[in-house]
């Protein structure tokens, strides 16, 4: 059990790092997705199913979707300028 928690913690630290170093927002969206999936896993392991549930629903689905739409809108704006 202990090594599982440790592994999940290290993975969340690494995926957070990944979000920061993905300087291109388009890549960053996927890093964000990965980060929140890892976090959701960590929350499951930390005995917080409620939280993991909402992490998956909000931060892996809705928020990246909003990011993608925003990026699409920005790209469209660029094209129209």
């Amino acid at each position, binding site marked *: 059990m202990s090594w599982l928690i440790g592994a999940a913690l290290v993975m*969340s630290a690494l995926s957070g790092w990944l979000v920061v170093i993905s300087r291109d927002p388009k890549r960053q969206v996927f*890093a964000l997705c990965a980060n929140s999936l890892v*976090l959701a896993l960590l929350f499951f392991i930390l005995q917080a199913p409620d939280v993991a549930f909402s992490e998956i629903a909000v931060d892996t689905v809705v928020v990246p979707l909003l990011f993608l739409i925003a990026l699409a809108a920005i790209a469209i704006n660029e094209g129209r300028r």
Partner: protein
Amino acid sequence: MSVLAWCVVAWLLGIGVYGMVTSRNYVHLIGCLSVCQSATYVLLLGIGFRWGAGPPIFYDHPPGTPAVDPVVQAFVLTDIVVSAAMTALLLAIALQVHKKRGTLDTQHLRPLRPTE
């Protein structure tokens, strides 16, 4: 092991701040902000965690079995919704900024000063 969780919290906070400070794009900066936010999730859940305890949901096991702290979980739930709302608001602002200024470069966007 006992300090690993707290080190991860400090790392996530620090790395998020580093990312924001070196960011050259509003959208990227918003992503880094959410890394900072995730540090608080890990901190809160880490505080409530208890070795060998189950989830605070007494459906499969009877009330009275050891369970982790439900209060911090309620906090994190609040926190997640807040962060999603904040992200949406920031993205909306960033979108409008891009419409008006045509750039999202943090180095060039300064209120009340003309675009360089």
